[in-house]
């Protein structure tokens, strides 16, 4: 099967002075030799602690940010090599949904205008056709035509996320990159939006790259999951397999950290240490300072991302020996 999207050896380094008392410039490799593929119609989750490079990856794919090196193939075409004018029609097929729907909606525009904009850019329509399209869109996301004249601040967080989804759907995309789309929502509303995302995926045959830090949400909505650590994928595989038998100690640690809504469960091994910074990453396996299985080889040799079983890859020297089943 040819993938809809294929990312090859993607790299991005930022020059930054943040977090340093002396104001010195430092190189920060946010995305490090990242490769993965997205099959049409699937949902791939991207998880990991804050700062591990999830959002940067999404923005590099859409060229909201220019990569240092690497390739991004969409339907076989290298997005990083083509001209801006050739990119534009392809950008229509790839839309983004953000965590904070409020900050991504212009506060001075009515919802009707916000939703008309993508049509103006990509597909000019006669007024009556536009009206019909908007009505359909609102219905799909569970809003109504009365909402068209209102401003973003008049909506709740969940409704604003519905508007963000409607805006992304307006141009009939194939691929949606959703960056923490439900993280800011209350649980009851989060469940509504997750269901909506699943419904429209079926209806419009969408492919999702679903960026999130909530592992329970990711496992629910995703077919496959990629776990990132310090700009690299350390494990990728089918969602349920990853949960039942993680093949990387970092994945195991992440899963252990999730509080489970069942009282009286025994305590679990906690991951020690801080979320690491991509400035001065550790030698060898980047996870070794926090890894409870680390041996001396881990301090010196970088473990490659290797297939361990069909469709399940891990970058740990001991992936074959460790039994981390749950």
């Amino acid at each position, binding site marked *: 099967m040819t993938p809809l999207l294929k990312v090859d050896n993607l790299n991005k380094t930022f020059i930054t002075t943040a977090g340093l008392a002396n104001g010195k410039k430092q190189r920060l490799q946010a995305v490090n030799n990242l490769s993965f593929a997205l099959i049409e119609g699937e949902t791939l989750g991207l998880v990991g602690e*804050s700062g591990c490079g999830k959002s940067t990856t999404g923005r590099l794919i859409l060229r909201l940010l220019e990569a240092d090196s690497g390739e991004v193939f969409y339907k076989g075409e290298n997005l990083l090599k083509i001209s801006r004018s050739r990119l534009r029609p392809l950008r229509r097929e790839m839309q983004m949904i953000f965590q904070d729907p409020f900050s991504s909606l212009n506060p001075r525009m009515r919802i009707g205008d916000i939703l008309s904009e993508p049509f103006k850019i990509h597909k000019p329509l006669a007024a009556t056709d536009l009206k019909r399209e908007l009505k359909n869109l609102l219905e799909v996301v569970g809003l109504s035509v009365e909402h068209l004249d209102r401003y973003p601040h008049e909506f709740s967080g*969940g409704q604003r996320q519905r508007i963000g989804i409607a805006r992304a759907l307006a141009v009939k995309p194939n691929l949606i990159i959703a960056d923490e789309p439900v993280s800011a929502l209350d*649980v009851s*509303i*989060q469940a509504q939006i997750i269901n909506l995302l699943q419904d429209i995926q079926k209806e419009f045959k969408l492919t999702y790259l679903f960026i999130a830090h909530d592992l329970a949400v990711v496992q629910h909505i995703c077919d496959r999951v990629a776990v990132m650590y310090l700009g690299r994928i350390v494990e990728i595989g089918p969602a349920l397999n990853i949960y039942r038998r993680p093949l990387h100690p970092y994945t195991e640690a992440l899963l252990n950290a999730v509080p489970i*809504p069942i009282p009286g469960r025994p305590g679990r091994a906690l991951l020690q240490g801080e979320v690491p910074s991509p400035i001065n990453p550790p030698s060898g396996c980047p996870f070794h300072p926090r890894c409870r299985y680390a041996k001396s080889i881990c301090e010196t040799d970088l473990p490659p991302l290797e297939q361990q079983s069909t469709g399940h890859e891990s970058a740990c020297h001991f992936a074959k020996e460790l039994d981390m089943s749950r």
Partner: protein
Amino acid sequence: MLQVRDLKTYFFTAKGVVKAVDGISFSIKKGETLALVGESGCGKSITALSLLRLVPPPGKIVGGQIRFNGEDLLYLSESEMRRLRGNRIAMVFQEPMTALNPVLRIGDQISEVLLQHQDISPGEARDASIKLLHQVGIPAPEQRIREFPHQLSGGLRQRIVIAMALACNPQLLIADEPTTALDVTIQAQIMELLGRLQQQRQMATLLITHDLGVVAESAQQVAIMYAGLIVESASVAQLFAAPGHPYTRGLLASLPRLGEKRDRLSPIDGQVPSPLESHTGCPFLPRCPDVIPICSSRYPQLQETEPGQHVRCWRAE
């Protein structure tokens, strides 16, 4: 230790009266953690601020009692309250930077709390600060006391805030979403730390959270809030085994769970209510799947359905 009776805190805004907290009652025993759970805007933080008498204007506590060790805090003078805050009652907020002074060294901030409430010398305060930082798991505290808050990660900052909160051995700790801004790995560390310190010191703790996983792991008692009211209170074991209120059942059903693959989640329909809405009947009615005629005409009271479990619902028995 703490007994809250019929607490009401209203905001008198240009658009009308916001009944942020509309008559809630609960109590917390020594060494016990009560989790206060609910959706955004239901009144959790205003409850916490009310206990400390720190409600911002145009908000006002308009009724009720807050008994702390038998004494009603609503009758204390402002200077008596100041002696309690940060001393016998301490608070930890979601965003650690709100509790930290960005231009003050960490050691000085902790010392300041100690010097304010205790009769000790600056040198003793410094030693006590180092000891506290050690207790909250900060590596190399002798060096850290010279650093500024912005030089630390979010998790370390929250540990500092916890150290400050615990500096004077509070009897009551109020923690308002102490880990919401943190990664799940760091959240687990902080909750483990809070639990351990609470056991050692036998503090009463009010833990505000919207995460039912955190409730199950860290609390013994739980109160579910909706639109300024407590709609269910119970022991944690009871609540998860047999939730009595349709809202509680809805919350539990809407959670995706690790290790379970379901086709669809079961959300609660509708939206979180606007704080300006007033209700004649049950405030949950517009989202409730179990409505009967009386729900729309009268406001249900909390009633005991099982020993120790209270539910505010006409259908509860």
